[in-house]
Structures are given as structure tokens and as C-alpha cells.
């Protein structure tokens, strides 16, 4: 087809426009490059540092010690797997709890604006009360001498010497709790746009409520579910506040705790860096597979 011919003015205008674009983007891009991209490279480099013979604690020199990876993997693979396992359970639970919440607020209460507004406020508000304070509150609520543990013991669901805290249950519950709003809000945003007349149309075309749900509601809220699961899984996998406060024993240690302690207690920078890098790459791989499998274009 014909080649595009442009006047000088047009080319000049285009250039000017492009220059505006560059002015807009450059500062932020610079920050992301210097303090995100570059640090990741530094992290990678540091994960290969070696400890010279007779060095003091915390003294390392640049090197190419691939065995750092083997060392930390063989020592900490259970924590790594546990992190993904806990994050997965928490994500599924958050979805199971979060979807009805989002549906309730977005669809069921659509006509009742005031109630809808109040519940929406309650959904957003936890963002503004300290996350650690709330986790600590759970710890105290679930404490051995607390009301819930005592009642469970009284009705013999919990054995007399049983605990609620310092268990995988408490950690997963904490993760689910803390990332629940990240699951609910994207689904809410999606369901908020769901046209309920589609459900009527579906019912009119002989679909049972369950069929309507699986064939209409679910597919239409898929982008929200997709975003919500990612926003829950990724931070949950790297979290260590819940496992530290609600768990804090060998059965509940997550990889974040290990990285933290290798950096600050053991002062093993290469090991900690290697673990961080492994965590980052594993999540990227999992997320990529997930996006390939279920992803929609709308997200990116």
C-alpha cells in the first residue's frame, strides 16, 4: 500500500508529542531502573558472593559461587514449599470467602445503596488500620487463655493441651484474613458491572441458577477473580509477619522468615540473596504459567 507522506509540520508536531511523552515517563522510569531493576541485579550478584577464608562474620567478596544456591535449597526447601502451600490454601480460602462477600455487596445489595455503601466502607477500611496490629489482635484472640480456645476446649473440639496459635491453622487463617480485601475488591469491581438482566436472560433460556452462575456470573467475573488470586497469592507467599506472630515454630516457618534471619541474624548475605532470588523466580514462573493458562488480556 501507499507509503505515508507527512509534512514537516506534522513530523515536528509528532516529535514534540513524543518529547512530552518522554518527559512524562523518564523520571519514574529512572526510579524504577535504579531502585528496582538494578537492585535485582545486585541481589543476583550478591547471591554468588563467596566468603574468603578466615573472613569475619558478614564479610564477603564478589565471586561466582553457584553452590550457594545448592546450599540454601537443600537446607530450606521445606520452608519454600510450605510458603507456596500456605499461600495456595490462603488464596483458595480467600476466594471461597471473598466471592460471596463481593457478590453480596455488588449484586445482591445493588438496589439498597445505603447498606451497600456501609459494607463497601467496611471492606476498604481495614486498609487503614495497621496490619500488624490486627495480626497481633488475632494472636491474642486465639491465645490459649483466650475465649475462643477455652470454649473449644470446653466443648472438646480442641484437646485440653491443644493450641490455636503456633499452628499452621493460625498462620493460614492469618494469611487469609490479611489478604482478603485484595481478593474481594477486584471481584467486587467486576461484579459491580455485571448486568443482572443477563441472569434473567439466562434463566429465560432454561438455565438453572447453578448453570447461570457457572455459565454467566463466573466467566464474567473471571478477570476480577484472576486479579484477586494474584494479589493474594504473591504477597502471601513472601509474607512472614503471620508466620512469625501466629506461628513462630518449626512447623510454620515460611521462607520470608528465613530470608529475614539470614540477612539480619546470621549475616549470610549470599545465602539470603540466593533464597530471595529463588523465591522471586519461582513466583514468576508460577505466575507466568497461571497467566498463560487462565489469563485475560484485560489485566496487562
Amino acid at each position, binding site marked *: 500500500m501507499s507509503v505515508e507522506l507527512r509534512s514537516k509540520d506534522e513530523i515536528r508536531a509528532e516529535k514534540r508529542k513524543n518529547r512530552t511523552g518522554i518527559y512524562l515517563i523518564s523520571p519514574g522510569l529512572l526510579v524504577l531502573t535504579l531502585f528496582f531493576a538494578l537492585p535485582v541485579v545486585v541481589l543476583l550478584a550478591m547471591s554468588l558472593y563467596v566468603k574468603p577464608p578466615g573472613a569475619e562474620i558478614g564479610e564477603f567478596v564478589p565471586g561466582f559461587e553457584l553452590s550457594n544456591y545448592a546450599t540454601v535449597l537443600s537446607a530450606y526447601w521445606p520452608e519454600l514449599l510450605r510458603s507456596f502451600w500456605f499461600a495456595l490454601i490462603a488464596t483458595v480460602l480467600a476466594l471461597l470467602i471473598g466471592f460471596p462477600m463481593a457478590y*453480596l455487596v455488588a449484586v445482591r445489595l445493588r438496589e439498597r445503596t445505603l447498606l451497600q455503601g456501609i459494607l463497601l466502607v467496611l471492606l476498604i477500611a481495614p486498609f487503614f488500620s495497621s496490619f500488624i496490629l490486627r495480626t497481633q489482635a488475632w494472636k491474642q484472640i486465639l491465645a490459649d487463655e483466650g475465649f475462643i480456645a477455652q470454649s473449644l476446649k470446653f466443648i472438646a473440639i480442641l484437646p485440653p493441651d491443644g493450641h490455636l496459635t503456633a499452628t499452621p491453622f493460625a498462620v493460614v487463617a492469618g494469611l487469609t484474613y490479611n489478604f482478603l480485601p485484595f481478593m474481594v475488591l477486584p471481584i467486587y469491581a467486576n461484579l459491580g458491572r455485571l448486568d443482572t438482566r443477563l441472569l434473567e436472560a439466562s434463566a429465560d433460556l432454561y438455565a438453572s441458577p447453578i448453570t447461570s452462575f457457572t455459565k454467566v456470573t463466573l466467566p464474567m467475573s473471571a478477570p476480577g477473580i484472576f486479579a484477586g488470586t494474584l494479589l493474594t497469592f504473591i504477597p502471601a507467599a513472601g509474607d512472614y509477619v503471620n508466620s512469625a506472630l501466629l506461628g513462630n515454630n518449626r512447623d510454620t516457618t515460611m521462607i520470608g522468615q528465613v530470608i529475614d534471619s539470614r540477612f539480619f541474624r546470621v549475616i549470610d548475605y549470599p545465602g539470603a540473596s540466593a533464597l530471595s532470588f529463588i523465591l522471586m523466580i519461582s513466583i514468576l514462573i508460577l505466575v507466568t504459567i497461571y497467566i498463560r493458562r487462565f489469563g485475560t488480556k484485560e489485566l496487562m
Partner: protein
Amino acid sequence: MKNIGRWLIPVIGGAAFIYLLVPIAYIFVFSFNDGGRANLQWQGFTLDNWLNPCGAPAVCESLVHSLQIGVVATVIATALGTGIAIGLVRYKFRFRKLTDVLIILPLATPEVVLGASLLAQFLNLGWELGYTTIVIAHVVFCMSFVIVTVRARVSSLDSRLEEAAADLYASPRAAFWKITFPLLLPGIVAAALLSFAMSFDDFIITNFNSGSFQTFPKFIYVSATRGIPPQANVIGSAMFIVALLVVIIGQVISYRRKKQLENA
């Protein structure tokens, strides 16, 4: 089956809301505890904590730090992120794919890795950890959220409105300030609020890059083992109430506007 759906959703949803609010209620109740420093057991009702929230000095000091960092990091992240969001949607340029990756990647990176890599960078540069390094770290992780939020708004903005402005004698600058910016403002404000909330509440990244500098979440985490002073509960509850009021006011305004529309 239809009936099950009828009550199942309100029941699960309702229970979930209780689940969401129980710890907040607990924090609120225990902000009135006359429990001294530990605040683990209910010792009796008092208003002292509310009347004197700085009774435990470390609480207030760390709170002020967190507020400062939150504001500074939010202003920077919102400004830079908004620029990128507009630039990405509206302008063509090279390395677009790479830029996209650079924006999405921080969102797909757990905080512990972000924190660790920045720490590695700061150690490498020999920078002293403290206020500045925390602000930088917060700007980085808040910026991606700002970009995603504002970009959605820019994409949904009808570019024909800007054409209409140009057609009505508005220079590009006037068109931006009179049309584009006001229409993006709700998105930018939402992004800034989100950014502030995330910065204020961040623990993991901060913990890696703060050295001995105390922030509010860090203070609570550190004191969690020996008991958090009830004044911290006062702060937590007060923040929640303020946030609640802000969101409620926002809701009332949009509710009124909606009503107005319906009556028109």
C-alpha cells in the same frame, strides 16, 4: 437449589464481614484497657489511653515517622506514577514492552524480595539505612500500584473530549488542565490514598531498609513479643475511625450525586 443460593450468600458474606471486623473490634476494645504496658489481659476500663495517646512516647514518635514517610512517598510515587500512566497510554515510544515489564514486575515480586534487593543495593552503595532509604523503597513499591490505578483511568478517558477541547480553541496545555486533569483526578486521588495506606502500613520492606529508624508497624512488631502498649491500639482505632469517616463522606457525596441524577 435456588433457595440455598438465596440465603447462602448473605450468610457466608455476613460471616466473612464479621471475620474481617473481629480484630478491629478487639483493637478498639483493648484501647480502653487499663493494662499498663503489656495490654494482653483485660484489666479494666480507662479513658487514659485515649486522653494521653503519647503516654508511651515511642508510639507517637514512630507514628509521626510513619505519617511523614507516608506523605512524602505518596507525593513522589503519585507524581511519578501518574506521569508514567499518562505517557504509556497516550504516547508512542521505543522500549515500550520493557517499560511494561518494569512496571508489572514489582507487583509480581513479594515484598521480602523487594526489600532484600533494595537492601543489597544500599549495602552495595554504602548508603546508611534510615529515613531516605525507607522513602525510596516505599516510592518504588507504591509507584506500580499508582501506575496501574491511574492507567486504568487514562485508558477509559474519552480522547474525543480532548479533541473537542482543541476544537474549542483550547491549547494543548489548556486542554490538559481544563479537561484531562480534572477527569483523571478521582483516579489520582484513589491512587494516592492507596499509596498512603500501603506505605503507612508497610512492615516487611521497611524492616529491610530502615536500620534503626522506627516506624509505627515496626514498633508494633518489635513490641509484639512483650506486649503492645494500649496507646498503639488508640492510634490504630483512631486511624480506622478517620478512614471510616473519610470513606463514608465520600460515599455520601457520591450517593447524593446519584440521587440527584435520578431525580433529574
